[in-house]
């Protein structure tokens, strides 16, 4: 591999890594609070991308407006899913997981008649290329890094600096104690659903101009996000960020050298070995 290629795949790795981080953060946040894994995360990513397709490229709204609208719409959808699926199941983890799986297959399958059988394309939002360390990188890919970064910082501030964020941390520590202190667990869980869904939608919205759109497009990022949260330790936010960066880089560099599929197989073998020898994740985070 030439140095140029290495630099290029590193930067592309960083931009893919930021998408993975957004996906994994939502998953790990929801897990920390409710001990569930949102299997619908990939389908929401897909819906986020299609929201950009319709709002931005079909109806002509500005990209940023479309981006925010996609997050708001799917965040609201997340809140509704909490109300109509999670809450009636009353905390049963297994039925919740199965219901979320059903929601996923429903959204994917319904995508074909609704969005059409043909792949969709979103026209580029940012034109041109930029010279970085002597390598030309498209601005489109580059812009993902600051935008995802801004969302991560925003989430960090929300969790650590606001009252709602404090309520979320309280539930993560001890649900009963938080409820006793007057935290409305339902509302905060609904918020976690909304944030998780909005982040997944943002990932899809950021990737929409780069990849082709089809109803199954969320499956790969979802599996990547699973690998990341196992890598970083389930429920750990720093773990999700570090794991996401690592997997993005490995993915991009290994995929450039060997191809995308062997890269996925390798990362799977790696997490199986990790679970075998260090089940708390790479960074030693012990789930509560």
């Amino acid at each position, binding site marked *: 591999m030439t140095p140029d290629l290495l630099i290029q795949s590193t930067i592309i790795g960083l931009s893919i890594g930021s998408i993975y981080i957004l996906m994994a953060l939502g998953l790990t946040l929801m*897990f920390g609070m409710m*001990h*569930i*894994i949102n*299997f619908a995360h990939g389908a929401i990513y897909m819906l986020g991308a299609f929201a950009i397709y319709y709002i931005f490229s079909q109806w002509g709204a500005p990209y940023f407006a479309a981006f925010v609208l996609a997050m708001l719409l799917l965040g609201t959808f997340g809140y509704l899913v909490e109300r109509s*699926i999670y809450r*009636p*199941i009353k905390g049963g*983890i*297994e*039925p919740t*997981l*199965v*219901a979320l*799986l*059903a*929601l*996923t*297959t*429903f959204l*994917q*399958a*319904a995508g*074909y*008649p609704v969005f059409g059988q043909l792949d969709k394309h979103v026209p580029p939002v940012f034109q041109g290329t930029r010279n970085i360390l002597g390598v030309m990188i498209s601005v489109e890919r580059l812009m993902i890094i600051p935008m995802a970064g801004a969302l991560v910082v925003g989430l960090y501030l929300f969790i650590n600096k606001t009252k709602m964020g404090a309520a979320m941390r309280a539930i993560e520590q001890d649900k009963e104690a938080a409820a006793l202190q007057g935290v409305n667990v339902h509302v905060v869980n609904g918020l976690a659903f909304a944030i998780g869904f909005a982040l997944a939608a943002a990932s899809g919205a950021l990737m929409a101009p780069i990849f082709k759109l089809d109803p199954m497009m969320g*499956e790969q990022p979802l*599996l990547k996000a*699973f*690998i990341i*949260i*196992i890598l970083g330790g*389930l429920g750990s936010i720093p773990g999700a960020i570090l794991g996401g960066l690592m997997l993005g880089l490995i993915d991009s560099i290994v995929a450039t050298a060997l191809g995308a*599929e*062997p890269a*996925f*197989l390798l990362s*799977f073998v790696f*997490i*199986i*070995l990790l*679970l*075998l020898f260090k*089940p708390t994740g790479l960074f030693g985070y012990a*789930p509560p």
Partner: protein
Amino acid sequence: MRRLRVGVLIVLGLLLLLVPQLGGDYYVHVFALVFTNVILAASLRPSLTCGQLNIGHSAFMSVGAYASALLAKNLAVPFEVSMLCGALLAAVVGLAIGYPSLRLRGVYFAMVTVAFVEVIRLIAQLWVPLTRGMSGLSGIPKPNLLGVTLATKASQYYLALFLMLLTLLILWKLESSRLGLIWKSIGMADNLAQSLGVNIANHKLLAFMLGCFFAGVAGAFYAHFIRFLFPPEFGFLMATNILVYNYVGGRGHFAGPIVGAAFLSLLSEPFRGSAYETIFFSIAMLLTILFLPGGLITLPGKLAELRWWKSASAHSPSPAA
């Protein structure tokens, strides 16, 4: 009541024996596939009973299917041997996946099994010299059982029926033994089971491997029956379908997955393979979880309760009157 149930089972058994005589090749084909689905659904049950969500059962079916098909095609191994090898390989692969992930929280296992579906699909797709990749593996010989080639669809139908009944018998015996009670105990309160001396990690693993073995059996039959294997077939959708059979049928009783698999596969037959099949399955699943958590098998009881309640309130005068 018991006599009635035995009677119904005997009539049902006779009807199943007569399908090739009464119906044409179409029904024979459909029912043989229903039997495969029943094997798959029932073999997921031990793991589910332990409270372990295996969302990758189709991957183990795929292992059994490819192993058996390749052994028969390339080495002319008879069906009974190739099927057994395929099923054993599926169980061994289950060991490799289950051992690291089953010692942890249930969601780890769920995530690993989902990812494994993709892993198996990619292997089948990339290992072209062996599996023919995306061109699909064709020319798989018809099942050759004890030196006799089962050439007709009807004879293959009886093979499927036999395999299903044998699988159900074995799984039923295990579930109604102490082993089944231990599985249930792990599913209900794993910490309590541990405190009574149950090695829960080993029992979860055993239940899972058992399921993988029978998924391998189903795969092997499928391979020699359809005689064409295509990697994406054994994907995420098939894996969730197997879960749907269990949930819609009902988790509380051994008959649940059987009822669920038979009911849903027959009902969705007109639109098999289309997006509408998936839409139908996922809606059935969501409605069941939200409104009939016990599944279809609890429906007669619920209806009877309702009728009893209605007639009771209609006939007996209210205390106020």
